[in-house]
């Protein structure tokens, strides 16, 4: 055990003394999260909006004023008819439409309850959600103002419609995608490179001549990356929850367990690559080509799988990232439990077992 600890310690030294490794390990997920998160949401300034005011009363005017003063919005025009809205969305670069029903103020004052409709272009789901949140905040602000002045419980009820993409697909989808990408890339690449580096430096021979068990060599090499990947996972989750408002609806424990499975899968693949390569460059290229590209293409987080030609859809099934992506989406976004994802988990487990056996076999063969 003591031997094992000194080995693992050494592996951590390797990681923490190599700026490139560190950058890759922790820089990449942060950059990816920020890039994906804010490249989409960044430009929400002066978003073009239209209003359709059937009420034309003080309350609606006040709200429209508040909206147009806000930096997020730019009031493009006021429409006369509801039916023009769709046309405006198609024709102009409009992000949001707000509809006030007739008797808005009357309802509010007499019934203490009024409806307001917010329609968003959800083809860009991140922007849509953010804009709706801001518009709702402005309306709620007005409502608060009213309640302050009198004791009556005024209640404005915004009814929200997402145009084109009612399920808001894509909004939080990229977070599980990035998780798959980062975990796979980090684990496959780092393990492969760190083992091949020992071969290149001739230290692998020294290790194999020592009484230290060769399989423990592999385990000690993999363990630090397992730990670091879990830390990475935590960073991604914290970033996406705090900065991007991505929910984690399901069990975090399940999420971590499934991620650990993917990490082990990736570590096995890394080992397999390292067994069959002699130089760090080859290992790096193979991991990049073998992991990054298919993960981006076939996971479904960048390009929807449903739109792909059938042969490509079939190919996508080979990659563990696809199944992991489905699993994580189900847990994080839909809040489903294990019963909903056991099939995918089984596939992932099978792939992992296969890769692990294959890599240990080739490793053993190389020893002889």
């Amino acid at each position, binding site marked *: 055990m*003591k*031997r094992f*600890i*000194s*080995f693992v*310690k*050494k592996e951590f*030294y*390797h990681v923490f*003394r*190599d700026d490139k490794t560190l950058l890759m390990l922790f820089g990449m997920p942060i950059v990816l999260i920020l890039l994906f998160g804010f490249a989409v949401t960044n430009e929400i300034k002066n978003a073009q909006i239209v209003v359709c005011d059937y009420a034309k009363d003080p309350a609606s005017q006040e709200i429209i004023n508040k909206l147009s003063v806000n930096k997020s919005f730019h009031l493009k025009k006021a429409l006369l008819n509801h039916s023009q809205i769709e046309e405006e969305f198609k024709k102009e670069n409009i992000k949001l439409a707000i509809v006030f029903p007739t008797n808005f103020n009357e309802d509010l004052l007499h019934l203490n309850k009024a409806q307001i409709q917010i329609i968003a272009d959800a083809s860009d789901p991140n922007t849509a959600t953010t804009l709706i949140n801001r518009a709702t905040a402005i309306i709620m602000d007005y409502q608060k103002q009213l309640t302050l002045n009198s004791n009556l419980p005024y209640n404005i009820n915004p009814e929200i419609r997402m145009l084109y993409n009612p399920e808001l697909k894509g909004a939080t989808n990229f977070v599980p995608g990035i998780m798959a990408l980062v975990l796979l890339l980090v684990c496959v690449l780092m393990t492969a490179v760190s083992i091949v580096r020992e071969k*290149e*430096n*001739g*230290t692998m*021979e*020294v*290790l*194999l*001549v*020592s*009484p*230290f068990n060769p399989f423990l060599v592999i385990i000690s090499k993999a363990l630090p990356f397992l730990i670091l990947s879990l830390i990475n996972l935590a960073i991604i989750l914290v970033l996406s929850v705090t900065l991007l408002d991505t929910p984690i609806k399901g069990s975090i424990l399940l999420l971590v367990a499934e991620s650990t499975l993917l990490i082990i899968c990736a570590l096995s693949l890394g080992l397999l690559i390292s067994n069959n390569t002699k130089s760090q460059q080859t290992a790096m290229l193979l991991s990049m080509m073998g992991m990054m590209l298919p993960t981006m293409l076939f996971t479904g987080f960048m390009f929807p799988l449903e739109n792909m030609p059938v042969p490509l859809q079939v190919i996508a099934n080979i990659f563990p990232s696809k199944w992991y992506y489905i699993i994580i989406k189900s847990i994080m976004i839909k809040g489903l439990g294990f019963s909903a994802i056991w099939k995918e988990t089984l596939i992932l487990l099978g792939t992992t077992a296969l890769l692990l056996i294959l890599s240990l076999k080739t490793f053993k063969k190389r020893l*002889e």
Partner: protein
Amino acid sequence: MIKEVVIKTDKLTKRFGDFIATNEITFEVYAGEIFGFLGANGAGKTTAMKMLCGLSRPSSGNATIAGFDIYKQTEQIKRNIGYMSQKFSLYEDLTVLENIQFFGGIYGLSDKQLKKKSNELIDILGLQKESKKLVASLPLGWKQKLAFSVAVLHEPKIVFLDEPTGGVDPIIRRQFWDLIYQAADKGITIFVTTHYMDEAEYCNRISIMVDGVIEALDSPINLKQQFTTSTIDEVFYKLARRAKRTENLK
């Protein structure tokens, strides 16, 4: 006086397909001896050495290392040997002290032993100031001396050195050999491959391999008499000239 045999091979052979890298080599190495293992590139030295260290499985033949069988008792063998590879075999991104502690650690030395050993070693090598520096910052000669000291840290019976002095200047090589003599004085058997014929002269006995076969094996003096030459260099040249293999056949 009966000499204790620490390495004994009997028709040890390694085949890679049709190619016979080492062909039925049979020899003995005695305890405390400095045994030079010579041969041109591709003669099969490294392959033979790898088999003896347990890095490569022989195709046929037998061998015992420190009294343990090469097929069945690899674990015991590993505990009793040290190894320094051709490529310089320390971690460049670890400090001197960390390297010593790591290699001591994987050989299962206790904390107390490790502390004592690393202090000793740093004193002997005169690396007090450098002990907390990364190995990458040391000159090559120092690295090689350190690598050797690390290879014998766990006091093995036999240490295998695979061309340990490649690429360093004569002064450093001389100092390196001082270390080897010190280790041999302590009773450690040295099994060394080399390209430098002056180094061959330092050995107690040398063997010369040609085309996977041991062509000569004796003390440097006897070999020179046998081949009626004044230097090992000429002995080597006479033998190696017969080689049919060249490096690119490897």
